[in-house]
């Protein structure tokens, strides 16, 4: 009894459908949840970078106003900017590295998804969403770590005056900056890994490690 439900003449080959972002989002979330430790380490890189950025900026907010024309002030500010930029660069390289590792680690999974009909663009979305999600969460936490430390230090130094030293608006602006920089950097760091993942041939699924 051979029932032929599939097989013959199923019409012409069409273009594969583009999936809604929500599907990629769900899978990216699953990936983060299951590989939580790896995600945590990646996120820690962004978190520390953003914490440092926030701490430096927040420290400036809480410090007594300095003479902006004093050469010593200018030099200190320049040095700080350098430090912040360098640390952010370092964390970007770190994220890039750990996302590249994730791609290498998951070659079989990516190949399999392509065999099952995933488009290159879907794989790209998957990796951007995954790192983007980490970027948002880590930047948010990073802000509170950086600001929290500065706040505590100044609480020791200035006492209760610290509560009214900086306006909420200024802090909100700083949070926004921290988030924007954090997310931007993670997205930039993911460009190379995502392209590499998308270019992974479907035949990678067949590879067997010896």
């Amino acid at each position, binding site marked *: 009894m*051979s029932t*032929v439900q599939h*097989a013959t*003449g199923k019409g012409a080959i069409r273009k594969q459908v583009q999936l809604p972002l929500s599907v990629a989002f769900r899978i990216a979330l699953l990936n983060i949840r299951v590989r939580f430790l790896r995600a945590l380490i990646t996120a820690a890189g962004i978190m520390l970078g953003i914490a440092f950025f926030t701490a430096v900026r927040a420290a400036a907010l809480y410090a007594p106003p300095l003479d902006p024309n004093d050469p010593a002030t200018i030099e200190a500010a320049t040095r700080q900017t350098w430090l912040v930029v360098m640390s952010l660069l370092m964390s970007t390289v770190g994220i890039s590295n750990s996302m590249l590792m994730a791609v290498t680690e998951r070659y079989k999974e990516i190949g399999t998804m392509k065999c099952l009909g995933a488009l290159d663009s879907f794989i790209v979305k998957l990796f951007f969403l995954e790192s983007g999600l980490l970027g948002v969460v880590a930047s948010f936490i990073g802000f509170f770590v950086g600001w929290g430390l500065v706040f505590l230090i100044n609480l020791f130094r200035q006492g209760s005056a610290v509560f009214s030293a900086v306006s909420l608006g200024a802090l909100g602006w700083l949070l926004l900056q921290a988030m924007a920089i954090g997310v931007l950097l993670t997205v930039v760091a993911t460009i190379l890994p995502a392209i590499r993942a998308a270019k992974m041939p479907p035949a990678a*699924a*067949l590879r067997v490690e010896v």
Partner: protein
Amino acid sequence: MATTQTNQGSEFVVRVRDVVKEYQMGKLTVRALDGVTLDIYRGEYLSIMGPSGSGKSTLFNMIGGLDKPTSGSVFIDDVDMAQLDPQELAFLRCHRIGYIFQTFNLIPVMTALENVTLPMVFAGVTADEARERGIELLTLVGLGGRLHHKPTELSGGQQQRVAIARALANNPSIILADEPTGNLDLKTGKEIIELLKKLNKERGVTIISATHDLKMLDISDRIVWIRDGKIERVELRSELELKVGEVEGEAG
């Protein structure tokens, strides 16, 4: 019996024509396939046999749309794969071909049911329908009670069953099985082979398998032997049984 269902389509589900594949290895050009021509019947169970390095995997990849020939062409359902753009190739892989791997290749973060429904998600099937069909397929392969288990919570044989259900997800014309029993013990391997044969008979799906496993010979309709990038011979099972019979006769 080689069931050749010739409904609307042609009687051949796959046609391989003068396929040559060359790889560049440094300055050396290696010819992995040297003019292979092969027609695969609809509903057939075909095994590709050959030692490693024979070009077996290369041929298998060509049929699966995973690699492009240097010259010659491969047709699936009368469509020349070389003419397809990446999106059409993705469509073909999604709808026409089901893949089964030696290492099972389930997505580790997903449950059995999610793994089976993934190709349907890629095909744009609604969540409800995908769920329903996924449960049906997992029940078919005998895993109706393990829908929500993760791959790590399943044995090798069970994982391969999930992979078989996944390969059937979009009702493909062919199922490509690359050493499906390579990572399984003898008994489990036998069960998987029997399941594949059952699906081949009952659902009429064409199964093409690259293998070393001699157990496979017993149930294949035809066996293609590859050596040095060429088809050495193609055997029908009936011929094969005769030989096995002879060997047994001599032994007794």
